[in-house]
């Protein structure tokens, strides 16, 4: 080729990647079935009796969702559904594996399977009934009221394990409204910031290199800060308040492109955390556990230390599924909060990294969707949903691995907990809807009026 090389650049018309999704889904169903067989062989020396039923059930669920995505969101992102299916399937297997330990209490896997099915049903309903994510924009302030209502609700119910985050419904079980409030408040933030972002970004004074917004624009962020602190005080739920405040700061930063919001957010959240940690006994214990994991407590080391022992005994490649000693974690929740400790012990560092990468990929697809979305509301909603998801993964994984104090949130999709699984399936459905709109090829341009005029002339 000569020096005057020239190139033609054409954009690839976004192909609809449904076949890729199908192939990955087959993969995502096969891996948990493999894991299930592996646990059975390791624990009882035989392939578990329910293997065929479990495999067929999971496969059927995946097939139905895939077909509905094909029908209702043909251009949606090909990765989100398989990754969510894989994480959910792996979580089910791990819970079933922990059910095999009699010391860990009643079997949870069948119930979790039921909640997962409900989650998939909600996923389908959202996909079918929310034809366009911009419909959600109409309910900006309604969602604010609804989210605050859901957040306040658990105050009226008795605390469980020191945190008032559950609502007990007789006959059905207990729900964690905070998980749903997470999605609903993201809708409010996206709708609010879309309208106010210019005022927040431009009407500000510059003080010491930071942009200080006006009081009336700063008001809402302070209110949200106060509300999240109040949740912390009344419900002693460190995780949810961190999540809400972090979510708002992330969305503010994305909407206004002002670094000062991040500085403010970090200052306010650390001030709040220190204030609460030094006053609230429940939170204080958690911080003490984090700072001194090897301190003796009821004659044994803390849960934090036990989780670290689990990671340590797992090593690089793990002990193998069903061959670990997760039952030794004395904590209240080896099936929910500490499920990552089981992953770390039985699959080792390699497996834990793969699982964390899967979460990372899911979050990346969400952020990618936000980049590709054409309308500002969709952008903010996608970044808020994936940012909240990312924060939740960080808070849980950080808590279990001892990076930050444990906060008692659930690992999305994997951990045992009905509300979490249902809410996260709905979250993935909304992200898929936005990505379908974003990746849909633009309609072909209308024929130019000039051409029609000449045609009329020629006809005469």
């Amino acid at each position, binding site marked *: 080729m*000569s020096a005057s090389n020239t*190139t033609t650049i054409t954009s690839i018309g976004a192909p609809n990647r449904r076949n890729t999704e199908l192939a990955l889904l087959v*993969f995502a169903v096969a891996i948990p079935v493999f894991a299930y067989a592996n646990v059975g*062989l390791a624990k009882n020396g035989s392939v578990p009796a329910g293997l065929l039923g479990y495999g067929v059930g999971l496969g059927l669920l995946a097939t139905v969702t895939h077909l509905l995505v094909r029908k209702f969101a043909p251009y949606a992102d090909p990765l989100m559904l398989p990754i969510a299916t894989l994480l959910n399937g792996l979580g089910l297997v791990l819970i079933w594996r922990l059910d095999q330990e009699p010391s860990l209490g009643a079997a949870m896997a069948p119930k979790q399977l039921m909640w997962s099915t409900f989650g998939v049903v909600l996923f389908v309903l959202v996909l079918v009934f929310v034809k366009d994510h911009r419909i959600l924009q109409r309910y900006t302030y309604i969602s604010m009221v609804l989210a605050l209502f859901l957040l306040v609700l658990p105050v009226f119910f008795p605390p469980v394990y020191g945190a008032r985050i559950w609502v007990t419904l007789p006959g059905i079980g207990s729900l964690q409204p905070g998980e749903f409030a997470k999605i609903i408040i993201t809708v409010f933030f996206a709708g609010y910031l879309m309208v106010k972002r210019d005022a927040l970004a431009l009407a500000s004074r510059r003080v010491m290199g930071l942009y200080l917004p006006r009081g009336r624009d700063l008001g809402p962020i302070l209110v949200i800060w106060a509300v999240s602190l109040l949740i912390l005080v009344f419900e002693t739920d460190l995780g949810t308040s961190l999540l809400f405040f972090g979510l708002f700061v992330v969305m503010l930063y994305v909407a206004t492109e002002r670094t000062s919001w991040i500085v403010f957010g970090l200052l306010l959240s650390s001030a709040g955390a220190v204030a609460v940690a030094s006053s609230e006994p429940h939170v204080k214990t958690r911080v003490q556990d984090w700072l001194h994991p090897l301190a003796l407590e009821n004659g044994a080391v803390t849960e934090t230390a036990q989780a670290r022992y689990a990671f340590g005994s797992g090593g690089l490649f793990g002990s193998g599924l069903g*061959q670990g000693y997760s039952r030794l974690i004395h904590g209240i929740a080896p099936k929910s909060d500490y499920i990552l400790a089981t992953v770390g012990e039985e*699959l080792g560092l390699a497996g834990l990294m793969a699982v964390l990468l*899967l979460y990372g990929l899911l979050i990346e697809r969400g952020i990618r969707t936000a980049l590709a979305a054409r309308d500002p509301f969709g952008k903010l909603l996608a970044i808020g949903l994936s940012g909240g998801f990312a924060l939740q993964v960080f808070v849980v994984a950080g808590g279990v691995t001892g990076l930050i104090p444990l906060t008692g949130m659930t690992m999305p999709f994997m951990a045992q907990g009905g509300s979490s699984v249902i809410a996260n399936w709905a979250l993935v459905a909304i992200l898929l809807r936005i990505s379908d709109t974003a990746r849909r090829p633009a309609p072909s341009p209308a024929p130019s009026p000039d051409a029609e005029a000449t045609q009329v002339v020629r006809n005469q």
Partner: protein
Amino acid sequence: MSELTLTVMRLGFLAVLWLFVIVAVQVIRSDLFGTRVTQRAGRRGETAARPPQQRQQAAAQDRRAQQPAASARQRRGAPTKLVVAEGSLAGTTVALQGQTITLGRAHDSTIVLDDDYASSRHARIYPDRDGQWIVEDLGSTNGTYLDRNRLTTPTPVPLGAPIRIGKTVIELRK
């Protein structure tokens, strides 16, 4: 269960898990390269020198990139691209997708001619109702030539016939 089987399963499971991650990353790769960059020859001779299957491939790519509405109208043997064969822009191609292509020195033309003999709005090439491509001179000073003949009326363009504007030669190709 023997120790060996369990070890194989343990490592096999990790391998499968990582395989899934790698396949997922491969799927993402297509998003990082959102545009397709095709090399094209700088001179006409090099265009001819390209191996035929490569040219076919490029044509197939062009066809795939077209809008479905346009390809529905496409007949067999219809041109799919406009190629500048000679002149300062030699090597430039424009995919024919049913839109009007304007030629001239004006900056909003589809092909901006950097040619002393070209007028600012020199000529246009457009499809008529049957999908036949027509070239029309827009009252240029130095005229537009199809083969050797100066255009006076809108004229259908056969495949591969040279359209000459000053020192620039344009052809429609498959």
